[in-house]
């Protein structure tokens, strides 16, 4: 009996907003799907497009970048640069045969914990509908 696939979503969260919102969700005990694996970055602009691809190549079922609201970036406009890169990332995904929906870039502020949880929930649902990433190595029985 094949073990049920447990999706994994890599989320690059910026220190000032995304990561803080996730922390706040914890303080408020807002529950959300456990597929999320957060990687802290200082700014959403720190995320290189190749890193997104790398994650998908290594088997992530979804990748998110969560940065600050427009106009509120701690580093002035890093989030806008991240947004601009998103188009490039979409193209890369197509080239490598990944569904666009496996990547999501979004913005929220540090107090928007409920929005954070909702976004994670939406992504989780999306990823379930898309099915496991073909690169996922969970089929090898390598359950974590």
């Amino acid at each position, binding site marked *: 009996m094949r073990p049920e696939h447990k999706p994994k979503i890599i989320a690059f969260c910026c220190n000032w907003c995304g990561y803080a919102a996730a922390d706040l969700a914890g303080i408020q005990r807002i*529950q959300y799907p456990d597929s999320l694996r957060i990687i802290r970055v200082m700014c959403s602009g720190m*995320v290189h497009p190749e890193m997104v691809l790398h994650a998908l190549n290594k088997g992530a079922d979804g990748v998110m970048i969560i940065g600050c609201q427009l106009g509120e970036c701690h580093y002035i406009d890093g989030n806008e640069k991240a947004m601009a890169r998103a188009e490039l990332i979409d193209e890369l995904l197509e080239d490598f045969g990944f569904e666009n929906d496996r990547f999501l870039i979004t913005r929220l502020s540090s107090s928007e914990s409920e929005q954070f949880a909702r976004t994670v929930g939406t992504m989780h649902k999306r990823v379930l509908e898309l099915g496991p990433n073909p690169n996922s*190595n969970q089929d090898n029985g390598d359950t974590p």
Partner: protein
Amino acid sequence: MATPDEHNRRLSDRRAIHIAYAQAVPLTYCIDSDLCLHLNGTGHCSRCSDACPADAVDFLMSAQENTIRVGAIIMAPGFSPYNPQGKGSWGYGVLDNVITSPEMERLLSSCGPTSGRLLRPSDNRPVKQLAFIQCIGSRDPHPCGHGYCSSVCCMTAIKEAMIARDNDCELEVTVFYSDMRTHGKGFDRYFQRASDKQIRFTRCRPHGIEPAGKDGALRVRTINEQGRQLEETFDLIVLSVGLEIQEPTIQLASLAGIHLGPEHFASTSSFQPVLSSKKGIYICGAFSGPKNISLSIEQGSAAAAAAASLLMSRRDTKTRKLRLPPAQPPAAAVKTGVFLCHCGNNISETINLETVRKQISVLKSVSHVEEVLFGCSQDTRELIIDLVRSLGLNRIVIAACSPKTHEALFRRTIREAGLNEYLLEMANIRNHDSWVHALDPDAATDKAVDLIKMAVAAVMLKRPVTANTAAVKQTALVVGGGVTGMTAAINLADQGFPVDLVEKTDRLGGNGLNLHRTWNGEHVPPYIKKLQAQVLDHPGITVHFCATVLDAGGHAGNFHTTIRDHKEHRRIITHGAGIIAVGGKRSLPDEYGYGKIPGVVAAVEFDALHIYNDIRVSRGSSFVFIQCVGSRDETHNYCSRVCCTHSVQSAIELKKEDPNRQVYILFREMRTYGLRESLYNRALELGVIFINYEQFGKPKVKSHDEQITVEVWDHILHRPLHIMADMIILASGILPNPDAGRLASLFRVNIDEDGFFQEAHPKLRPVDLPTDGLFVAGLAHAPKPIEESISQALAASARAATLLSQKEICLDAVKAVVDDKHCDGCALCIDVCPYQAITPLETIDADGEQHKLVAVDTMRCTGCGICQGTCPKRAINVVDFTYEQLTAKIEAALN
């Protein structure tokens, strides 16, 4: 020998030899000498001493008396919860299922006597119907002897109700209250959330509790908002007990020779809220009046600032400096130590740390795994230092809370052990795991293993980094010349730090210029004059009038802020710390005929008319105050905190001048919190009539033939009332400074959804802004009365002084670093850097070849990593967030 455990509120037992509670410092056992047979002389027991393998029990240890000479004393003796035993008809102490709110805290705590399950004390059956009764021992002079409001119990009950319902969504919760005093920042919204979660709030004060039958159920008879008498049954009733000052504290005050008021709270002046009646003795916290955590913390810092100012001339004469061991040279082999924090029960109640330990121990670079109860405690930090030294650990992973909480603390800890402080990584298995995946412990455990593997993978790739130090410019910038700004400036300047005070208008005083009396009757204008003179005469303060902030940059210890003064000159001020005290703005009503009917005025306007004996006031015989105008509505979903007290004070004055006047106050909740409750009682005594319009809707103000009529429904008689009024006074609220948003983005801080500055942590860091070195105080933070602004100003000053008292600080080493081998000088990073911190560089190598590279100015670089996200060669990386480390985390997460 066993006795009820005070920490668990006597809900469980403890022995004579015991640890007081899990977070005790030091975390060692002590012996209760009254209970111990050996020490109280009733027996010859020495079981503990015999059992101790370390021979650590010393029965001969006794109390020692020491004399210490000091220049200032800060008293923070706190409060005691009111004990309802034998009082009123609550049945506390007789009926098993009647408990107090502190006992409820223990029941809900996962470290408590029932591990967080809500069970009836009488028979351990699960609770299905829960009730809270508010105002026990508060607002209750008649049987209980305390007329004041304890100001925190409304929020405490809502919090306990929310937690109880979160733990069991079938639980039915009722809160019986008289006024809902959720007047703090964000508190009204919290109250609304509770109502949305189907917690039933009913405005009625039950008079007592009776047993319902013999199985422990409880009966309460109340009158509901429709005026019907109801009998209801509950499994468990929580008495929300108030705060009081008890005998040991009263004696302490007597020893200190400071004055206590009639309810035994320490007397203070509104203008010096942390100074006792005796010079050199400062007080903070609930000792001077009931208050919550954030106000207590502010007062703690404020007392420190006041004491520091007093002792300025003796600064540093007795300070001890921490001597750090030299940092070890990097070792060849990586030896990682992983510390798994239980965080009490916050992590371990969901995550199986034993499973985690097993799986992490087998990882290649992990040489030691240790479980600890509280990573941040003194004991654990000493353990970490000990293990680093004895086991030669050279990489540390702390699996615990958020790095934003304690990363700095753990960095300091390993530095004390001689390890470079950047060889640390935290795995956030609390905020991002145990707290948010409570319903699936297995999944939470799996995730914890992943998160720790990610941290281990990343920390292996870390290298020791030496941070640069930077000189601290030991001066401060205060933006805003109102009472808050002036208070902060004076305190900082008194402590020896020069201050630049930026004021938008041409005079000092701000919103304080519109005030006349504080809540306890102290006269404001002379105080403001005094402050103005102090500021203008102070050699350490430079005031910039008619000046606004145009631009801001820099970092803690070295900010540069550009202002434009009245002559349109630009000036750049460099400063080590900054305090934002830009105040608020009073709102102008747009309802009830304001601006159309002559007799309708706003409260602040009425004050002036009253003082100058305007004919409308002197001849007036009927006055109606309407509360919550422009507050607690859709566009301003917050309480302006000061208006209830203000209207009540005005009403008292009107009645004292002429008892035949009719004075009415139309309100939604009466928020004369804390010791202000005495004003409410006084107003009632003088015949002021209070009408609550929450249930039946806003009053209607009409004018016909110059006669103003107010129509409002009476909340007790459920029928309409007509009031013929001479004047209507609208208690309009406090708005944020309209410029707050612009200033916030200049300083790279945030404003909240209501437009007030967002502090770093609402409870624990109330005056810190998220950017280090910047602080906020006064109305800019949230609506508040003048004495709370003064406390906050002093608190911000204390926080700023902590930074400014250092000559240099270590800069964060988290900066971009160029990899010479891979950089080809393409300069794409230069374009994207928001701080222009990267410049092109040409070098010539040993073979005489020219290379194009880039160079990073570490003073300008903020470590944002946008360059890293852009570089096609992976040749520029931010320390601690390198491409390699991030990739390692990705791979570890996905196995």
